[in-house]
């Protein structure tokens, strides 16, 4: 009896703390069931899931970066620009330097390309961070501007053309699967998600990030170096964009200045859907992962409906984003009212 009570107690406190995650899982089940029922065999087959597994990593990794910046109370709209700029530089390096290289030197060149990429991610992220922290430009405007700058540079470098002719070994590597079933991009996403989760939950930086996002002034009054935390956040976002860029480059076998232009909104949508608060201070990786699953399921499922054209996706993403915002707003108000009621009842009981 006692243990049962303790268990139900613990379950209650778990569900209280993770009400958002539970709601998301319910939505996922419903969405999944909807397509499973309406499309049956066409949806419930291994190929569907295999394609989902390789499609979702690139934008999901970008979303992780955006989530960090949202938690800090800002936003990074330049992630796609960073990914494309880095992708182009990496692709140029590979297609000019590595094509004639000896086979055993190829991994070295790939590592070199990645190093170039991460350097670009670091500089772009640092530039964003500088604008947001040191110069106090509102993050949305700053990163909108840098999005144009990074994309603009990519266009200048390529004159608007795509860069192809990478080393085959690289394409092969990205498009292969570990143990025959775990696609490399998915593995990279899992690694990134695990890393971000670790950073948010266990590290000094993560704790400070949540505090800074909740109340920047109080954070400064508590001795947190707010500018340093912000710099780090935008740099991390830039570095995550490079990981996404590595996948994009491998999957497309090329790099272009305007790849994945729809990803920006999708990233924000994933974060908002996953329970990251746009005003900052709250957000978990678990919520983002479930949000990614929901979105990818909808996306893949919709593809099975031939009569729905591809452009509907924007409409649906936008509508879902607005609907989720409104729903969160209403739920929050209700929870607030519930908490107030609870508190006043407790007080009455005490008296």
């Amino acid at each position, binding site marked *: 009896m006692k243990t049962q009570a303790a268990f139900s107690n613990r379950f209650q406190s778990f569900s209280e703390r993770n009400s958002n995650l539970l709601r998301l899982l319910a939505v996922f089940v419903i969405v999944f069931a909807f397509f499973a029922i309406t499309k049956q065999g066409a949806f419930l087959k291994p190929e569907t899931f295999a394609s989902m597994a390789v499609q979702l990593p690139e934008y999901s990794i970008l979303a992780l970066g955006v989530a960090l910046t949202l938690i800090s109370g800002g936003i990074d709209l330049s992630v796609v620009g960073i990914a494309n700029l880095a992708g182009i530089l990496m692709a140029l390096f590979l297609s000019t330097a590595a094509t004639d290289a000896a086979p055993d030197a190829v991994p070295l060149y790939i590592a070199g390309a990645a190093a170039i990429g991460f350097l670009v991610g670091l500089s772009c992220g640092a530039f964003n961070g500088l604008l947001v922290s040191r110069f106090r430009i509102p993050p949305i405007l700053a990163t909108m501007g840098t999005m144009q700058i990074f994309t603009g540079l990519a266009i200048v470098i390529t004159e608007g053309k795509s860069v192809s002719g990478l080393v085959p070994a690289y394409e092969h590597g990205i498009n292969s699967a570990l143990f025959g079933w775990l696609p490399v991009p998915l593995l990279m996403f899992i690694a990134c998600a695990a890393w971000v989760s670790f950073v948010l939950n266990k590290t000094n930086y993560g704790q400070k990030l949540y505090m800074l996002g909740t109340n920047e002034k109080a954070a400064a009054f508590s001795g947190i170096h707010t500018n340093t935390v912000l710099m780090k956040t935008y740099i991390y976002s830039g570095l995550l964009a490079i990981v996404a860029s590595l996948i994009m480059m491998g999957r497309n076998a090329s790099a272009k200045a305007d790849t994945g232009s729809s990803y920006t909104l999708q990233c924000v949508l994933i974060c908002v859907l996953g329970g990251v608060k*746009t005003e900052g201070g709250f957000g978990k990786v678990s919520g983002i992962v479930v949000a990614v699953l929901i979105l990818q399921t909808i996306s893949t499922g919709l593809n099975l409906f031939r009569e729905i054209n591809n452009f509907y996706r924007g409409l649906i993403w936008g509508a879902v984003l607005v609907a989720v915002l409104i729903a969160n707003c209403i739920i929050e108000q209700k929870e607030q009212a519930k908490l107030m009621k609870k508190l006043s009842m407790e007080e009455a009981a005490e008296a």
Partner: protein
Amino acid sequence: MNELSKRKWNRLLSHNEFYIAIIIVAICLLIEVRSGQFFTPNNLVDIVRSGIVPCIFGIGVLVVMLSGGIDLSFVPIAALAMYITNSVMLDTGFSGSIVVPFLLAGGIGIACGALNAVVISKFNLPTMIVTLGTSSIFTGLLRGVFEAKEKTASPILMELGSSKLFTAQNADSGLTSDMPSTLFILLGVVVVTFILLRYTTLGRGIYAVGGDPGAARRAGFRVTRIQFFVYCYVGLLAGIAGVTRTGMSQAAHFTSLLGTELTIIAATVLGGARITGGVGTITGTVLGAFLMTIVSNSLVLIGVPTYWQQFFTGALIVIGTGISVYQASKKYRGSLSLDERAKEELG
């Protein structure tokens, strides 16, 4: 110099419009020196011509920014309104009054703006994220539901676009440019918005809400109603801008329109509108829009490849917002340094 004129001079120096005007003159002179082609009649007419639509958009953005919000969806609204209106005109072969397409596009714009308005004012959600979402909705409607294709303009809009006030000719090259009659649409928007902002209680309410929403509520301004109006008004202006653009380019091309919202916002901020709300003028916005137009139009004149355009746009956004923030923070520091009494006693 007496006290009053000194104060007026100081006030002029504290205005963005003053600086941006100087920058424009400087840039114009620079381009003239480099190319010798800037102050030619046809180039000047060309610049006015390409500035008309950005100016109308910019004024819409200004109104939202004054109220303390931001709208990222006005360009998709314009694209949607312009596409539907043009298609209707094409299909019906309409040849009546030119007012009709404007009414139709304006109506569509207001309807879209009302969606923003309801979500933002009713649920008190962040304007930026909401309009980011609705902009995707409107684009989705355009391309998904209406399966929009680039079409040529309908006859009535063709007529609107090709009517001209005069033709300017470059004496050396013989190139000519027409000054479009749509300049009057811009003038109309400027006059109406100026009267709205300056001489109506509603307009002053927009400034008040942007200055301090709490104080505005206490003073008796109906804050949600003002917000509602603001987003509808932007929608209206977007619709008008869309139709104007269709006429002037003789085609309802929406792909080249989508994605230009940031440039417009940057132009407005460059023109002295404060991102945090409450401060900004039409003069500044028009100057800002023309600065942007001059820069992007003249890159070719001074031999910079067009590939650079997006880069320069981004740089202008960052620099423009940076300056605006810097000025605001100077204000803040000013308010920190105590009041006059302390200064008096400290000498």
